[in-house]
């Protein structure tokens, strides 16, 4: 694990004036709304206001419902991804897991397995796929970026092996519309959005208010130190990957029922959108920093922009440029802010490790 994570971004070490103080209960508050995610929260507020004011149909119940449905799968996968990236790892196989689960559901349903049973089998399959990632990362000690690039191809390939270029689309209509039904009859609030919200709260509590969450940050900051202070680093990572697979499987089931089809090329490339949303939400790719709130805002921000631009009549091409620029801006801004602050703060004479100038940093928290 390349050490010295977050040297530049959150802790302008010599200048404790403005930075969030690490120790104590204030830390929890700081991690809830730190420098890193306040831009995304602000951007989301601006985007929401702008869209409701200037885009005609945006604030209608129908459209909000459509918007929430379109981001539900990404939001689901982003939750465990947040925890994984906080520990300094990454899971690029989530979209392929989604597709393989969807294909499994299709094959099971075709062969006459009752759908309730098939759903549980799918979740178990997802857990197994995630566990395989976890074993490869923790037992064999392989870098998760490489492992999940491999399983991304493997799981997607297995989805093709199961379904080929066929589609299974004979799902019962009641199930297909189920996830889209409004919650308690409230228009604009699909049932799945409530489910995602509940899960998000659970993940937020897990990450920000439990010893387990605390240990995830410790692992991300320095997993060797975490290991020596008694954190079961490997077990934790293993369960995180298993959790990620299970949730991706849940997203796969939802996706299948939402669109009423299983296809092997489902959600192709979605893993990068999930990672983009997580990073946009202020989670550091080096681990140790991040919040569920920020990530959910990131997911929502991308969804709102996409939706508003579409309603505005702009093409999805523009959206791609905007997505890319937002992502870059979201990582550049905190750096610039930190630099400006560091430049303004009177530098103490005893600065031990000056910020390396104009040089690169390792691209992520992979370990050898």
């Amino acid at each position: 694990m390349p050490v010295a994570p977050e040297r530049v971004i959150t802790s302008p070490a010599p200048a404790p004036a403005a930075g969030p103080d690490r120790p104590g209960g204030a830390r929890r508050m700081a991690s809830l709304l730190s420098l890193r995610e306040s831009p995304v929260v602000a951007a989301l507020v601006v985007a929401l206001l702008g869209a409701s004011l200037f885009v005609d149909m945006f604030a209608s119940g129908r459209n909000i419902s459509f918007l929430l449905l379109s981001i539900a799968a990404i939001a689901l996968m982003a939750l465990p991804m947040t925890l994984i990236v906080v520990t300094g790892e990454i899971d690029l196989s989530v979209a392929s897991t989604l597709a393989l689960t969807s294909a499994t559901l299709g094959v099971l349903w075709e062969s006459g397995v009752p759908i309730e049973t098939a759903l549980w089998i799918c979740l178990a399959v997802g857990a197994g796929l995630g566990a395989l990632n976890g074993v490869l990362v923790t037992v064999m000690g392989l870098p998760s970026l490489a492992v999940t690039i491999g399983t991304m191809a493997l799981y997607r390939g297995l989805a093709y092996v199961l379904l080929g270029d066929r589609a299974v689309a004979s799902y019962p209509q009641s199930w297909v519309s189920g996830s889209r039904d409004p919650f308690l009859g409230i228009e604009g609030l699909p049932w799945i959005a409530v489910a995602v919200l509940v899960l998000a709260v659970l993940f937020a509590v897990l990450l920000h208010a439990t010893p387990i969450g605390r240990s995830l940050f410790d692992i991300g900051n320095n997993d060797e130190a975490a290991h020596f202070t008694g954190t079961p680093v490997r077990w934790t990572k293993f369960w995180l990957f298993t959790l990620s697979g299970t949730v991706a499987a849940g997203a796969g089931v939802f996706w299948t029922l939402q669109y009423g089809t299983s296809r092997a090329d489902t959600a192709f490339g979605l893993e990068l959108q999930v990672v983009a949303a997580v990073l946009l939400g202020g989670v550091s790719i080096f681990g140790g920093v991040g919040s569920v709130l920020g990530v959910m805002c990131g997911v929502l921000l991308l969804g709102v922009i996409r939706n508003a631009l579409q309603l505005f009549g702009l093409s999805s091409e523009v959206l791609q440029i905007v997505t890319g620029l937002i992502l870059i801006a979201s990582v550049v801004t905190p750096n610039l802010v930190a630099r400006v602050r560091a430049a303004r703060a009177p530098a103490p004479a005893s600065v031990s490790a000056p910020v390396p100038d104009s040089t690169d940093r390792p691209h992520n928290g992979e370990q050898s």
Partner: protein
Amino acid sequence: MSTPTTAPSPSATGAPPAPARRAARRRPQIRELGVLLAVVVLIAATWLHNPGFLSHQGVRDLFLGATVLAVLAIGQALVLITKNVDLSVGSVMGLSAFGTGILFVTFPGLPVPVVMFAGVLIGLLCGLANGLLVTTVQVPALVVTLGTLYAYRGLNHWWAGGGQVNAHDMPESFLALGRIPVLGVPLPAAIAVLVVVVVGLYLAHFRSGRELYAIGSNADAARLSGIPAGRRVITAFAVNGALAGLAGVLFAARYGTVDSTVGTGMELQVVAAAVVGGVAIAGGVGTVYGAALGAVLLTTITAALPIWQIDQFWQQAVVGALILAAIGLDRLLALRTARKLRGGGARGA
């Protein structure tokens, strides 16, 4: 082809004792020999199964198929060695391919070499932007290039506006590039071989090339020992971009039809090829020979599957399993080398 690897190190960094150095050096060689062996066995077995596989046409298809991926993988290897990654190569290649095509449409009189150069230049500029972002603002490459992956692709979509450039828009002499044989191999493949040799020699024998390994192994240590890490990383990204541009030009010459979706999803295949060829994602390890061999292996598998009458749908699963096997093998070899190094030290003491 796989011999030079990392051997003649001018040992810019403190050299470990001789036996240890030899053991450490041997690893990449084993690694590339393994991939080479896999390619040879696969080709031989497929040929025995169906001699049509190595027909004149078959070989040419194989060469051309591997060329684009190999050129991309060589550039990616440069970046990976510095412990960075470039996810935007698919988009850069698409941008350059479309740029090449559109130049022929807008300026029909332009000489072919000028257009090709322009295509490479587009890639170079994209790579330069990546490198500058990564180094000057100290943003992790994974994030930057994930951003530019979308930005460049969006730019291409916006530019192309759903249109496409067809073969009849391009001059015959350009399209013929894919067919002209040089010493028996198609010109694009010859270009790829030239690129791999030049970059390989550079990495193995030039001080600035060796420094890329030092940066990837320990960027802080490299910086402290006076290596201009930022500049080297920018160069790696720029060269990678230029090679992605070259791949785009070759793509346009080979297929003749270019739209804004060229190269979509290619980035992970490229990283996969490099990883299969023994370039470690953790930086500091690997050669471009390995990366190119990895690309050849992936392409050969794709070409061989139908001949073994294995469903095409198995292809991606095989590629995935191969990546996992490659990084697993790498890990085992690394552990063995580490044990050997420890053992050697004990004997010496």
